[in-house]
């Protein structure tokens, strides 16, 4: 059923932009082909990067199940990352069928990047985005150490709402007014969907790529340090409420 939902959401986004381009040739710097490519590939990046089991961290903390995890001889956050990878693999597996149906039935115009260097860069920044998301998402769940109400869902809900927009999941960020775009592209969410797709679509030159890549590395390091710090602090605050 979750996969049905994902499929309907993908179709919804596709049909919306398809309809918009029936009446316009160009929206910002995007023609129909580039925009539909953006929509279809953003579904891939959502499966690869935004699919996560990190909400379970909050549930474990709020229900006290974390006790059971802590006594096992494995690093908790690393084990959550393994779970994450499994969820992503399953999501990508089902997405493959969804995209196959869309390509066979709707035959959308699709931009194929033929430059191997750009494809490699796309894979590199996508993987970078995956790690940045893991730490950011974990950090949101760790808030539950201090605020266990509703199993951490309020903070997660707020994060999902904001992230959906700031990652470029609703529309490409460079359609927004320049002042807003220049600010948003420096934030971590921009590296989940928008930046990798800019690389794939060949919309960034070498300088912009390295600039974006360095910003991503900066966030990766900062978020890793903060997450480790908050995890240690949180454990000291943890009282196993719920057990």
């Amino acid at each position, binding site marked *: 059923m979750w996969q049905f939902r994902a499929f309907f959401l993908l179709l919804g986004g596709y049909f919306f932009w398809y309809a918009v381009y029936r009446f316009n040739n160009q929206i910002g710097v995007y023609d129909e082909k580039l925009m539909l490519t953006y929509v279809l590939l953003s579904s891939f990046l959502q499966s690869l990067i935004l699919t996560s089991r990190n909400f379970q961290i909050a549930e474990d903390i709020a229900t006290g199940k974390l006790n059971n995890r802590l006594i096992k001889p494995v690093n908790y956050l690393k084990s959550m990352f393994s779970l994450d990878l499994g969820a992503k693999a399953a999501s990508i597996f089902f997405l493959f069928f969804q995209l196959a149906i869309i390509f066979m039935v709707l035959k959308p115009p699709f931009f194929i990047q033929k430059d191997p260097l750009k494809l490699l860069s796309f894979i590199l920044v996508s993987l970078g985005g995956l790690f940045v998301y893991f730490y950011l998402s974990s950090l949101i769940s760790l808030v539950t150490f201090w605020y266990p109400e509703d199993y951490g869902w309020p903070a997660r809900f707020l994060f999902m709402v904001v992230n959906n927009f700031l990652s470029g999941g*609703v529309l490409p960020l460079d359609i927004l007014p320049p002042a807003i775009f220049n600010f948003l592209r420096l934030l971590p969410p921009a590296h989940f969907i928008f930046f990798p797709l800019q690389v794939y679509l060949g919309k960034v030159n070498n300088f912009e790529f390295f600039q974006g890549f360095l910003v991503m590395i900066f966030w990766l390091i900062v978020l890793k340090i903060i997450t480790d710090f908050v995890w240690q602090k949180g454990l000291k605050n943890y009282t196993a409420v719920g057990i």
Partner: protein
Amino acid sequence: MNLKKYFYLWCRTTILSLQSKLSRRGSSVIFILGKFIRFTFYIFSLLVVLGKSQKIAGFDIKQMINFFLIFNLFDLLGQFFFRGIYWFRGKIVSGMFDLSLIKPVSPLFQVLITDTDLLDLPLLLIVIAMLIRQNLNISLINLALFILLSLAAFLVITSFHILIASIGIITTEVDNMVWIYRDLTLLARVPVDIYLGSVRVFLTFILPLAVIFTFPAKAMMGILAWPWIIYSLIFSSCILFFALKFWHFSLRKYSSASS
């Protein structure tokens, strides 16, 4: 049906729901804030896209904003009144639904509207205020048609929720059905007219989101043809009749498992 009794019961359960929300003030504030942010982001995105394009399917910015506000109005109304459906699966799989069946109150009423979600109320009021501000010059006939089609829309929303609850009794799949319904309704944030022929037909006749979201908005703007008004009224009555029949059919299939 004793309307006075049911209205009293709704008021009581709504007060209980409010007390529950107030006991978790922090969470409630964050959820309300999240809903505001989501609404603001979407309306901002719509303005950005429309600002960069010509009219879409003949609709200008003001009309598209009207469609979006009407979408939010009915989407929020559905969530405001029928939030109870989101917790229905738990009652089915645990057998707790037995307790609803033995009470001298319609079980359907208990399933649908005994958990009013007051967290949707602030945004609902803002959407209504924006709609009024956008349409101060509406004619009386358009206003009357809008109210009439809003009632039809609400009947269809109610019917969909009854159908979901009924399917839930038979299959125990409720949560995902609700979310699929809500995901599909996202297609109606814009008028169904902008979609390709087959999608438009689907959204008008098969899963008639047009009846819920597009037609009332068009009626308000005075651009809805009469045949669609008649279609909305007939369809909403028929689907409510069918949904109630299906509900009674599904009740006979309830196995009271786990109780």
